[in-house]
């Protein structure tokens, strides 16, 4: 019998205990992987290549202040800017006020918006139909599926910010790389009905020449309007999204503390199991020593056993997390920010590594005590 098979056999000699331990570790690691994935999506992921090329300009004071619409032409003149489209939050109510019936609605310029969102897919004839119909709208494919919308359907949005109800005809259905749960319509339609909406823009979406130009363009835009009555704040699309996440509170500390609790709990579980199983085998250790096993090899055997169990739990947890995230990303109605979540190989590797470390740490103390055992004392030990 080789040493590896000895480790494998002894790891599962008490099958029920090992399975319970594996499961317990698996669930903790599932949570850890999910938390790390959220962290990765929020803070490390730079977004797609197309997204990295886009910027969003808003009023410096806050998102709820609007800017003059003529800013658009001034922004267009800045070197490095390829396309600019206004985007106005409408905030209307569809059907009722229930949160599940809430989605984003933007008034924009149909002639240019798709030149900014270069990664959105929409059939050319649908885009043209939308551009021709002032009361038309294009909707996200996922949203269309959720409500069963088809081309030509009419939807009613009850205005909350603007005192107008919009009756829109669906002229196109677009697909974005990540579900947007948004609809876009012609801003002029709102302006015709509400005089105070005229000449105002909530945000501008800008497409820059290349990702390298993004920070240069942002600075140029903000410099241009710095001393005007309506100063602006321009940032990359990713940074703009992150500012919403930050508004939920101290998300970083929140994720970190959950991760910490999970790792510590896993360590406790694993250490309890190892302490139990090594204590039960006090006499065996004495026998092994009698047979000539050195302290080091006994230490190695038990630590190997713990690492093996923890690794199996870790891998299982990663698989569970992977399945769950893939399932969630495709589920309709998932919140906008989590829809782009992907478990990366680096995250999985890190989780498995954490599992191995936990296994190692959990066995160090009991294994050390076992290795130190006096042969005669050990043989006399009654479990």
């Amino acid at each position, binding site marked *: 019998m080789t040493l590896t098979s000895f480790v494998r056999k002894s790891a599962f000699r008490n099958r*029920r*205990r090992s399975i*319970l*331990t594996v*499961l*317990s*570790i*698996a*669930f*903790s690691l*599932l*949570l850890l992987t999910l938390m790390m994935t959220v962290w990765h999506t929020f803070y490390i992921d730079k977004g797609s290549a197309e997204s990295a090329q886009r910027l969003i300009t808003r009023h*410096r*004071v*806050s*998102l*709820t*202040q609007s800017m003059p619409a003529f800013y658009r032409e001034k922004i267009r003149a800045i070197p490095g800017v390829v396309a600019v489209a206004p985007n106005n939050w409408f*905030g209307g*109510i569809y059907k009722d*006020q229930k*949160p599940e019936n809430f989605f984003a609605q933007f008034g924009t310029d149909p002639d240019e918006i798709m030149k900014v969102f270069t990664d959105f897919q929409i059939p050319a004839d649908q885009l043209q139909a939308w551009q021709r119909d002032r009361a038309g709208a294009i909707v996200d494919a996922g949203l269309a599926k959720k409500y069963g919308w088809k081309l030509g359907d009419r939807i009613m949005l*009850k*205005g*909350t*910010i603007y*005192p107008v109800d919009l009756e829109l005809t669906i002229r196109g259905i677009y697909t974005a790389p990540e579900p947007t749960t948004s609809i876009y319509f012609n801003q002029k339609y709102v302006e015709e009905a509400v005089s105070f909406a005229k000449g105002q823009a909530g945000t501008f979406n800008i497409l820059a020449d290349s990702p390298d130009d993004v920070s240069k363009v942002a600075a140029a835009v903000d410099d241009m309007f710095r001393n005007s*009555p309506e100063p602006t704040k321009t940032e990359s699309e990713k940074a703009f999204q992150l*500012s*919403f996440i*930050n*508004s*939920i*509170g*101290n998300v970083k500390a929140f994720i970190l*503390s*959950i991760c910490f*609790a*999970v790792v*510590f*709990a*896993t360590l*406790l*579980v694993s*250490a*309890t*199991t190892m*302490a*139990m199983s090594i204590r039960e085998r006090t006499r065996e250790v004495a026998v092994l020593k009698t047979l000539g096993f050195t302290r080091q090899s006994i230490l190695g055997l038990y630590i190997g056993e713990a690492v093996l169990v923890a690794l199996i739990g870790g891998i299982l947890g990663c698989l569970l997390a992977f399945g769950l995230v893939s399932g969630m990303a495709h589920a309709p109605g998932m*919140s906008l920010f989590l829809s782009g979540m992907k478990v990366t190989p680096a995250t999985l590797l890190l989780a498995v590594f954490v599992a191995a470390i936990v296994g190692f740490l959990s066995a160090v103390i009991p294994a050390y005590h076992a290795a130190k055992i006096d042969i005669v004392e050990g043989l006399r030990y009654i*479990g």
Partner: protein
Amino acid sequence: MAIPISYNVRNLKLRKGLTIMTALGIALTVTTAVFLMALLAGLKKAFMSSGDPLNVLVMRKGSTAELSGGFDANLFPTLKTLPGIAKDAQGEPIASAEWVVVVVLPRKDGTGDVNVSVRGLMPAGLTLRPGAKLIEGRWFTPGQREVVVGRSIHNRFSGANVGDSLDFAKGQWKVVGVFDSGGTSYDSEIWGDVNQIAADFDRQGGYASAYLRATDPVAADALKHRVSDDQRLKLEGTLETEYYEKQTSSGGAIKFIGTFVAIIMAIGSSFAAMNTMYAAVAYRSREIATLRIIGFSRPSILTSFVIEALLLSLLGAVVGIVLILPFNGMSTGIGNSLTFSETVFSLHLTWGVALTAVLFALIMGLVGGFAPAWQAARQDILTSLRA
């Protein structure tokens, strides 16, 4: 006959290390759950106590938040003449037309910019919010670029002390006082004169909302309907309490994530508890057989082991709650999707939260302890004695 509970207590004490480690594992799960529940309780408290049952909030029909409102200033005098509004010492109706705008301020600890609500109000606005008390300085003077800040703003932002200046909209605003509204969402607001604020944000000629103080709760309800039913006004009245109740929905994300995290951690802990209890059963198999011979029935053995598991989880629950105590009252902010600004609330450990936590731990103990206890009760006496 039932096996005395002291038997279980002694057994738990006997295998001290194992008991402590398992209980700690459960405790960590309980701590996480309590933490999230206490956050929600604090959030609820901040919003629920914000509204005054006597105050009627008036906004344009269809508006869901003060930020999205906006009605003509000419309507306000009509509103003031409605019957049912309480009068002050001078016989003037207590009513305040207001603006709520959002500004960006940097956090004191340098972790980024936060949206903060600035409320412009009339002097009557202070009268109809008796819950807000000055703790430092004085109230703002109408017609001056002066503001008073809520307690949370004072604590969380630099430049929010009496004598400092805050820079937003068209210039500097002098901070002349700090007020405390007892943990409600007003504590996360900055208050100033409505006309000054409107001028700075180019919003003259209208108001976002109006607050009317009713003489009594019945009058408040009548007033609410009177406003909504008046065809001339095209306005809608809501009780202030109802308005804030709706805003608790901003805790939805925490609730969802919290439940999810707590359930997954609980599953993990249940497996660990099961392990410990199986070990306890295996370790005491001869003891169990002896108990059976003495005459304890299978059901009483089953009960005894389930009780032991419950005791173990109860210990975990207590430790878990104690671990969260130092954080009780700690405050944090949450973005509100209706007001686009941050509301500060504190971790609020209520008896309800603690009880739920204990119940949560007991369920873990039950799930983890039942199978091992079942095995203990079904053991064959002779085989166990020989073991």
